[in-house]
């Protein structure tokens, strides 16, 4: 195919792998710790932010999304997440407004 040229394996040096690994373990501890703090409504938000960061780390470095030389894979990821949000958000349009009447 014409659109991509020579292929290089997305090689990440070992240091990246190990630092990501440490970061992930740290994140796990952090979630656990944050859950013990009383942050009010922000508990859930903090948990989700940490989880998303961890998920991003895995996707970008372990799954080589970052090194991927084509935008296509990123497009797949972004559009999937977009449709997932449609499912969640538009359902909430109903559930969130049912008691308004």
């Amino acid at each position, binding site marked *: 195919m014409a659109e991509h040229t020579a292929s290089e394996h997305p*090689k990440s040096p070992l240091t990246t792998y190990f630092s990501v690994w440490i970061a*992930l373990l740290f994140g*796990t501890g952090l979630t*656990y710790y944050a859950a013990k*703090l*009383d942050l009010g409504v922000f508990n859930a938000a903090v948990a989700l932010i940490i989880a998303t960061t961890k998920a991003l780390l895995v996707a970008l470095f*372990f*799954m080589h999304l970052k090194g991927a030389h084509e935008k296509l894979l990123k497009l797949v990821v972004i559009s999937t997440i977009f449709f997932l949000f449609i*499912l969640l958000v538009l*359902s909430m349009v109903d559930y969130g407004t049912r008691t308004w009447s």
Partner: protein
Amino acid sequence: MSDSTVAVQGETHNPALLHHFATEEQQRNASSFGMWIFLGTEVMFFGGLFCAYLIYRGWYFGDFAAASKSINAALGGTNTAVLICSSLTVVLAIWAAQTSRRALMLAMLVLTMLFGLAFLGIKGIEYRDKFVEHHVPGPSFSFEHEEIPSHPGEYANPRHAEIFFALYFIMTGLHALHMVVGLGIFSWLLWAAWKGRFTPEYHTPLEIGGLYWHFVDIVWIYLFPLLYLIDRHR
């Protein structure tokens, strides 16, 4: 591409190139692209469950918190760590394949599977606890007189807690099922690696299998706080 001969295994032509692809590169790109799309499918598959979870968590927050508190977060945390380690061993296995370290590759694959088994074992302990406590939804389910964490003196509605446990079992159960499939894939990868199929030039199956494994890891990364850590601070 196929001219850069595969020195390690002494093969001259890669038999893995299927007839309908023009080049190995096309084939590899197709495979990984296909896997990513499949993972998109998986996201939506779990997405339906997350949608249900989100709604009921909003409706029955207290009951969910009480139910969540009854599961062992330490085990869940440990399992998170185990999965993270297994993800590391997967990337290391691929790295080993890229750099022709056959022994390391095999060791890492074995380690990955051991981590996977450990995960399932810990999961099994958790399930057994729930079973003993009659927290498995069904006729024998019971969740009477469990306090809602942030409202002392108030008891969770067992029916609503049952919804939590239903979601808990379906979500973690499907996740565990994915782990089992992953172990199947990795057994095959191990066998193929043992046979010397993977070379610095050709190790697409390893990468594809790795993508799947990491994805299962990501699902867990979300399941852990959502199921184990609701309103834990009291």
